[in-house]
């Protein structure tokens, strides 16, 4: 194992300390594992709180700031945060307008956020919840824990965040967050396994010359393994899997997301192939984002997320955002 760490036990805390030093515009509570925008609570504004296991950086803490999340709760590596963190986040950002929890569909995240919602409501915070479940690789969700939440989380947090910034009420922010999730689908592939600091060795064995199709974001193996394919072949496979499920009737947002260990050069090359396939299928691309946004530690690979947008969603996507990992328009 070669990792730029001290000891596995302090990886999350060390990362938060460094984040605090780099981003004075955020309030970082290392002990309680909370990242909050410094001006919270903002009067009259709905609070947006998300969180999940660490190891997916910049998700979620990197998306805290004006125009996106009000607070993020980082858990241990690949482990959902605990309800105490979410309750603290909710009370820290609630201005009386209520709080929306953005929850990725994993058993642990769902259970902990549900418990937190109950506890926060006991403290007088009105809480709504949106569940992100965009991963089409989980094709028989009646026999699983349901579709996983992956790349669409970024779209939900950005678009709902922009709407909250405009002062929209909780029901409206929740409805748009849900609309974004329902309009978005993702598919991911792994070209290499992930090594967690605690385990110190790859969590699954992916031999050279093989790739794993339908991967999640926790290094959990996918559903199918195949001999290595070219970027163009992977794009064909992934985009077709997404479009089989989504069938967009208008322009779309595209996220070509790196899993952590794939160079940007390769991601851009892959994006060229994704755009080719979308164009062949007659899908108009309104905006494209390429980079490492919803990662899986050192996993090599990528995911594609496609989200159908109307005029309002596109306007909210373009609205100013100022966070460590996503910023434009200001």
């Amino acid at each position, binding site marked *: 194992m070669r990792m730029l760490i001290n000891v596995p036990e302090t990886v999350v805390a060390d990362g938060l300390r460094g984040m605090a030093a780099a981003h004075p515009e955020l309030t970082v509570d290392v002990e309680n594992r909370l990242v909050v925008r410094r001006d919270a609570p903002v009067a009259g504004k709905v609070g947006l709180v998300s969180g999940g*296991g660490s190891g997916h950086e910049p998700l979620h803490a990197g998306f805290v700031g004006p125009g996106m999340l009000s607070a993020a709760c980082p*858990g*241990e*590596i*690949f*482990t*959902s*945060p*605990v*309800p*105490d963190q979410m309750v603290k986040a909710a009370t820290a950002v609630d201005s009386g307008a209520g709080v929306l929890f953005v929850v990725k569909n*994993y*058993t*642990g995240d769902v*259970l*902990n956020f549900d*418990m937190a919602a109950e506890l926060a409501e006991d403290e007088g915070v009105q809480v709504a919840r949106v569940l992100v479940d965009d991963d089409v*690789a*989980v094709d*028989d969700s009646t*026999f*699983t*824990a349901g579709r*996983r939440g992956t790349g669409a989380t970024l779209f939900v947090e950005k678009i709902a965040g922009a709407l909250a910034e405009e002062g929209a009420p909780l029901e409206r922010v929740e409805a748009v967050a849900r609309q974004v999730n329902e309009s978005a689908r993702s598919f991911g592939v792994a070209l290499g396994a992930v090594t*967690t600091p*605690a*385990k110190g060795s790859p*969590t*699954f064995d992916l031999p050279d010359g093989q790739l794993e199709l339908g991967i*999640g974001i*926790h*290094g*959990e*193996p*996918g*559903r199918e393994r195949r001999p290595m394919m070219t970027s163009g072949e992977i794009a064909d496979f992934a985009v077709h899997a997404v479009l089989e499920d989504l069938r967009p009737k208008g322009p779309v947002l595209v996220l070509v997301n790196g899993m952590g260990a794939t160079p940007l050069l390769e991601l851009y090359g892959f994006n060229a192939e994704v755009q080719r396939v979308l164009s062949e299928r007659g899908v108009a691309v309104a905006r494209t984002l390429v980079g490492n946004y919803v990662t899986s530690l050192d996993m090599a690979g990528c995911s594609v997320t496609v989200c159908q947008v109307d005029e309002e969603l596109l306007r909210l996507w373009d609205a100013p955002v100022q966070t460590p990992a996503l910023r434009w328009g200001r």
Partner: protein
Amino acid sequence: MLDTDFFRRWMTATAAAVSREASRLTDLDAAIGDADHGNNMQRGFTAVTAVLEKESPATPGAVLTLAGRQLISTVGGASGPLYGTLLRRTGKALGEAAEVSTEELAEAFGEGVAAVAQLGGAQAGDKTMLDALLPAVEALSSSLGAARDAARAGAEATVPLQARKGRASYLGERSIGHQDPGATSAALLIEALAETAGPSAGGDA
């Protein structure tokens, strides 16, 4: 009869077992999950041992309620709420009694396990901790030793099953052939219970 000290020792024995087996739990989790179960359980039960020392709860019910709350606050993932609920609900069902019989424990534990099944929406055969806990509940009314054997057998019986809940469920058929980490840690909890009662109690505590 089982007193407050017995329940405290049960939790300490579980913490020791989880520590001892942490890397095995993590390896099992790496095969079909995300390789953190051992660390998470260890972090949780270490915190349980610490809080029990600090707050010294006065009844068996209070020991389990406090332990459960501590797990919810420190573990995260699915294990935190599920194990936390198991102990909290069992503790609540034990009420204020200063001592409880094995039969009373069996009944309370049954309520705790039912709460876990409801929270996780899982049932027998889904390849989860319930596959160890449900047979343990059945056997607990006869003896702690029988519960230990049933839990262990239940955990081992998850090997040929296909996971239908949690992260392992995404593997589909590829989850077959691996023992479930949650069922394995649940068996550790029950083994620690029998061990706390002592070797003589193994058969008829």
